[in-house]
């Protein structure tokens, strides 16, 4: 027992796959040997409204099912929720905020007035290129894995292959995951 507990909070809007992002990582994390738990919260069941989802990874069975108030990582799928939603709330000082934000991390740090580590990626552009739709969740799980090393890329790839029943959709999303992953590795200098 080394008492690993990683807590991640995802923010975005209904229709962007915020819930699925946490779910995919729960499946991928289990492949790496973690106990995992993911679950969502949202307002109305409508596209466009702010949504949050939660992911816990641990080396012990997870018993707490409350929302995550002090995350190790925050992942933001949609730049427009930053502001209306206090996405950085409770983020641990040594934590990371990973955002889909086209104007870059310096701009986001200034806009938010924060001094913890902020990593940005233009996931909407990448998703439009690969999927033709602004669904950013697979790009952002790729970015998360690239920026954190919490889950192995191979486990994520395996999960994406299982998740999408259409082979074509799986392949498109895999390309998206790998591009976002590689981009984040570069940003982090790994």
């Amino acid at each position: 027992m080394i008492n690993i507990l990683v807590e991640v909070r995802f923010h975005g809007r209904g229709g962007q796959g915020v819930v699925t992002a946490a779910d995919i990582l729960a499946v991928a994390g289990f492949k790496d040997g973690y106990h995992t738990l993911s679950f969502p919260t949202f307002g109305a069941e409508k596209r466009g409204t702010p949504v949050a989802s939660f992911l816990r990874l641990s080396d012990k069975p997870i018993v707490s099912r409350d929302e995550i108030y002090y995350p190790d990582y925050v992942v933001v799928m949609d730049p427009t929720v930053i502001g209306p939603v206090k996405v950085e709330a409770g983020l641990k000082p040594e934590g990371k905020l990973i955002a889909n934000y086209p104007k870059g991390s310096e701009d986001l740090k200034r806009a938010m007035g924060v001094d913890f580590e902020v990593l940005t990626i233009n996931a909407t552009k990448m998703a439009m290129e690969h999927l033709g739709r602004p669904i950013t969740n697979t790009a952002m799980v790729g970015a998360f894995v690239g920026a954190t090393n919490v889950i192995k890329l191979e486990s994520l790839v395996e999960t994406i292959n299982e998740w999408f029943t259409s082979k074509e959709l799986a392949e498109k999303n895999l390309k998206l995951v790998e591009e976002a992953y590689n981009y984040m590795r570069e940003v982090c200098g790994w």
Partner: protein
Amino acid sequence: MKKVVRGFYSIAYSVKLCRPDVIAAYPITPQTEIVENLAKMYADGELGNCEYVTAESEFGAASILVGASATGARTFTATCSQGLILMSEVLINAAGMRLPIVLVNTNRALSAPLSIWNDHQDSMILRDAGLMQIYVETNQEAHDMVPVAFKVAENPKVMLPFMINMDGYKLTHAYEPIDLLDQEVVDSFLPPYDPPVYMTTKNPLTFGCYAPPNYYAEFRVVLQNAMERAEKELEKAYKEWAEITGRDWGGHVVTEGVEDAELIAIAMGSLTGMVRNVVSELRNQGKKVGLLKIRTFRPFPAKEIKEILKDVEKILVFERAVSFGYEGPVGMEVKSACFGLTPEFYSFAVGLGGRDVPGEEVMKIINEVYDGKVKQGFHFGTVKPFEEVVV
């Protein structure tokens, strides 16, 4: 085989392994994905000869199952909240007719105001309906309790509807690792349904006939007798399940650290895990606190609960519902079970309409009760300041 699946699937998969004959359902959040999964299994030909009926309402779904169950079919449905309330007339009838329908209620708040989120107000309204009721803590427990529910409901000594309560969202929407059962395991535990009485076209029978005053009371006496037998039969089924699967969820109640406890916290459902964590943290700080998890709510294991609480100074109940005009329903039952004892009693209604219950809130409530900083009786958990318009 351990696999990360969503709560919905953990139920649907277990229902499939129980070889149901008739499933009838109407969608309602956060239940729909259970019957969506079952509908897909049906469409894919995985449910054998099962009939899957899409009903026009929850009233219709329950009514279809009453008819099916009366012909000797193994029946299943899932619902919650307004859907459960709409089913209630039929379910109360099913109990009186002694039909062993199994349903999963994905606990959700009641209107008004409209809420799709979790608490226990829906199932508590059916407290007196004649359904057996259990509350599960995890999706693994939910998965495991489906065969147990069929076994006890269909036990010829019992013959009553069985409702498994699992918290909406907190469990239904959660992905987590589940050890999915094998068909052989379920088959070895759950025999085919062999009803003592059932109707056919050649042997027509009346269920739920008119009972004039000189007959009615006896029907209600046998319903109460069946519930009393159910307490033993359910206990036996829990034990047998533990022996067969190696997963021991305990009996009607589960305790931790209650032997020398000055305060015992009581919880049901998915909140229990966190209360257990907080209790063990407080134990490490040297505070004499314990946990009582109630699994079976109907039949209510009153004697067992009284025995556990007989020497404790303080009882603290975490409620997920309110009986308006009195207090929380679990506290009412616990107090009634403790008749003759004189502990201090506290109860807190938390997490109404899906409001999150953080570990910090549970810690604060237990500490304040332990340190004698709260008045005895019923309280609401964290509530924001507000102004009442009608005063």
